């Protein structure tokens, strides 16, 4: 199989231009592409639209891109832990499109799977339903929602191989596999990169067909938002 390895994050994100649409995996700070976020920070681009369940915190994750004013719009389900985000939003510098988490996940999944639209019950009777087609099936109301696709999707996996196959760990999986499939170009950073053939085909979470570039990341911080321990 063709070798999809690139040298590092800088090479992986080199051609990401201003004003494009990015998807970034992760839930909270878990499973976020730390290396690619750092590499994006070094680039002189702005006007990004980012699809990500959350928006990071002030000094980590997508919060860093916000602080550098690289982001025009966030498409997320929950953005609550970020003061700079709040400031930019209230000042009108930043747009935000808030989407129910399951609808966000399904829209991304639909983007990767070639389903342009689908019906879902989430948001019926709420402001999320405004302007959307609704329809009854078996006595229950549903909203028509459309697919989400991106120019680039950037995901973080635990293990990967040179053919682009990915295995995630724990709840760091979250949006990563569905976003991998929904980006025209998918960039995957992994903690451990092995040769094609070393991963069990039966255990692959994301088949390599979805991944265009892969590299082994360095220095993962894996910051914890809510360190909670048993007493």
């Amino acid at each position, binding site marked *: 199989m063709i070798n999809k390895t690139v040298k590092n994050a800088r090479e992986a994100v080199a051609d990401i231009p201003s004003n494009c649409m990015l998807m970034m995996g992760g839930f909270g700070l878990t499973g976020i592409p730390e290396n690619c976020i750092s590499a994006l920070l070094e680039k002189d681009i702005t006007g990004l639209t980012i699809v990500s*369940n959350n928006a990071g915190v002030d000094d980590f994750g997508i919060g860093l891109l916000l602080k550098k004013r690289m982001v025009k719009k966030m498409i997320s389900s*929950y953005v609550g832990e970020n003061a700079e985000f709040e400031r930019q939003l209230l000042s009108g510098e930043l747009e935000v499109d808030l989407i129910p988490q399951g609808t966000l996940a*399904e829209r991304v999944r639909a983007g990767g799977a070639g389903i342009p639209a689908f019906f879902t019950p989430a948001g019926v*009777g709420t402001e999320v339903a405004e302007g959307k087609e609704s329809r009854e099936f078996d006595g229950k109301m549903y909203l028509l929602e459309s697919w989400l696709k991106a120019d680039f999707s950037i995901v973080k996996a635990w293990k990967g191989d040179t053919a682009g196959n990915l295995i995630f760990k*724990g709840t760091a999986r979250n949006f990563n596999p569905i976003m991998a499939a929904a980006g025209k170009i998918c960039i995957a950073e992994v903690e451990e990169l092995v040769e094609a053939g070393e991963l069990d085909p039966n255990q692959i979470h994301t088949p390599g067909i979805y991944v265009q570039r892969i590299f082994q990341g360095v220095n993962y911080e*894996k910051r914890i938002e809510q360190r909670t321990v*048993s007493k």
Partner: protein
Amino acid sequence: MLTKDQIAQRIAKEVKNGQYINLGIGIPTLVANYIPDNLEVVLQSENGLLGIGPFPTEDQIDPDLINAGKQTVTMAKGSSLFNSAESFGMIRGGHVHLTILGAMEVSENGDISNWKIPGKMVKGMGGAMDLVASADNIIVAMQHCSRSGESKLLPECSLPITGIRCVKKIVTDLAVLEISPAGGFILKERAPGVTVEEIKQMTAGKLIIEGEIPEMIF
């Protein structure tokens, strides 16, 4: 009046053996502490875990294993991991039997508001809209009144809605109430020491009182 822990404890009595349950942030998370040991239930976390275990000890902490409230967790025996689309497929598909979540307001026809206050910073609905639109059984854990003393059980929600006609039962610091299919809060139980009259005063929506209202038993 019940403490938050007592609300959680009372809700835990609603849990049935073999159920798959999604617990929201806040009081609902506390419910896990009161589920009797003889019941085998599975807690779902919408970020991709079935079978949430106890919080980790210091040396068990894994940053790659968190719940939907972003707290570090462990995995129970027999748990499984999956992506966000699969997770909400589970929820929407009705496979999760019971959802317990907090609310700012509930209306007498079962509408719930819990995601947005006009004029305040909007943080987003997270998975709440999917959960309330999907689960067959939704129990709300909340304070009966706001800090300023106003009823949160209303004829109609005043805040933006999270979901319509979805709440089945409410456990507050004052009472256990069910939503009548015809509309109205059916008073089922009183908190210890709380009178029906007090609950009446604190409930702005239609309150249905049938027969003697027993005190809660824990």
